[in-house]
């Protein structure tokens, strides 16, 4: 929040600087299974954001003292690449990326059936290749597709989007200028089917009415993002869809020649 809210970001007929209306998302493209070496992966383009997510695991948890004998732990590492922003970002973890890693792991921990894999860790790596506001939402959207691609049992996919307040109006999916010079930023992640909210942060100020309107906008947008996520996975496994012959559980008896 730059606080400098006398910058005019929305025209009088409700058009934003990039030509969108206040309740419009940026163009979204998701690709599942883009990396060969990882167990699961996804690539997300959310407007000018470009985010890559990779999942490894469940695998043996190291260091040992972090193992939980009752369930798997979900470890997430969010990282912005040096060239992801206009001024070179100094590489390495910082206050912001540690926080984002934590909230994303906690959101994912809730949807994954961690109790199926005691003593293991599920590692999620999110790399932001290009940032233009809303990378934590793009990262979480990508990470949940990557988890599903890795074959990890989970309740549902997690779509995520940011809502904000710009020039005293509630707007959906802030882009960089709106994030910098707007009045509030509110990232939301949810399970669309149940309406459970997995991530909610707020920076800036909103009235109660504005907040309610923001949640309403965000929930609607999450449902649209959810469809794109499902479509990405369906495309990835569409070859399988043509299957007419059975992936039958043949009695996998050892056969010795």
């Amino acid at each position: 929040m730059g606080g400098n809210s006398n910058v005019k970001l929305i025209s009088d007929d409700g058009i934003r600087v990039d030509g969108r209306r206040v309740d419009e998302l940026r163009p979204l493209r998701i690709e599942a299974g883009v990396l060969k070496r990882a167990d699961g992966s996804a690539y997300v383009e959310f407007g000018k954001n470009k985010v890559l997510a990779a999942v490894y695991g469940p695998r043996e948890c190291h260091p040992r003292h972090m193992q939980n004998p009752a369930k798997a732990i979900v470890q997430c590492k969010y990282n912005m690449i040096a060239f992801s922003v206009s001024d070179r970002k100094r590489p390495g973890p910082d206050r912001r990326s540690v926080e984002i890693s934590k909230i994303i792991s906690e959101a994912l921990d809730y949807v994954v059936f961690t109790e199926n894999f005691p003593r293991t860790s599920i590692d999620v790596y999110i790399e932001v290749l290009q940032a233009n506001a809303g990378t934590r939402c793009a990262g979480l959207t990508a990470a949940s597709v990557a988890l599903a691609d890795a074959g990890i049992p989970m309740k549902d996919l997690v779509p995520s989007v940011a809502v904000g307040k710009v020039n005293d109006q509630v707007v959906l999916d802030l882009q960089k200028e709106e994030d910098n010079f707007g009045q509030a930023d509110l990232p939301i992640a949810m399970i669309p089917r149940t309406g459970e909210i997995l991530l909610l942060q707020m920076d800036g100020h909103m009235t109660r009415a504005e907040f309610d309107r923001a949640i309403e906008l965000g929930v609607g947008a999450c449902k649209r993002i959810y469809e794109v996520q499902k479509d990405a996975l369906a495309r990835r496994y569409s070859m399988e869809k043509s299957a007419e012959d059975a992936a039958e559980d043949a009695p996998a008896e050892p056969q010795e020649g």
Partner: protein
Amino acid sequence: MNKEDQGSSREVVLPGDLLDSGGRMKAGAGTYTQDGKVYAAQVGIKSVKSNFVNVIPLGGRYIPAPGDSIIGKVVDIGPSNWLVDINSPYPAPLHVNEVPWRVDFGDTARFMNVGDTLLAKILMVDETKRVQVTMKEQGLRKLQGGQIMEISYSKVPRVIGKGGSMIQMIKNMTNTRIFVGQNGRIWLDGDIENIVFAIRAIKMIEENAQTARLTERVKEYLESVCKPAPAEGTESR
């Protein structure tokens, strides 16, 4: 391939997809229930079997279950056990009592060393997924010679085929000895050329696991490469 066409409705499901809303069917593997409804928990193929909805996974890690035949690699040795990597998140100790030889305390390295591969069976898995393996059964042994390849464990049933038809065909046509572990490791032994053909055939199965007429296509491939093979063999002799 008529016998393989009988499959009921097969559709790809994603996590969170509704499988059964009426409570008519029970939740099987790869599913979960919420408010009496059954949902898919992972990416896979929906299958209905005797009133149970299951999701046959299309990916994921091998999770050991008692009775599985697996191919393990020794990664560590102790005075009375070997630690075996079974291609899963859990390492499996093999105790000297579960081995077909009489091993004195501290003498484990004389029988198997780090890096050796072995055929074993999962003896038991407890609730915290502590695994034990055994070699005390017929056919289980240390593997000598041959090669190991790894595929996704979810593709193992396809490599074996209905009643072992696929793997039997590969073995016969390439004249190799093959053992498929349920953890996705495959051991092959025979002429190096034939092993290469068998590996290519198995890779082909893994990549095209869910496509139609797979057995026929693998057969065509093997016929195209394997027919001249015996001729070359006799010439060189």
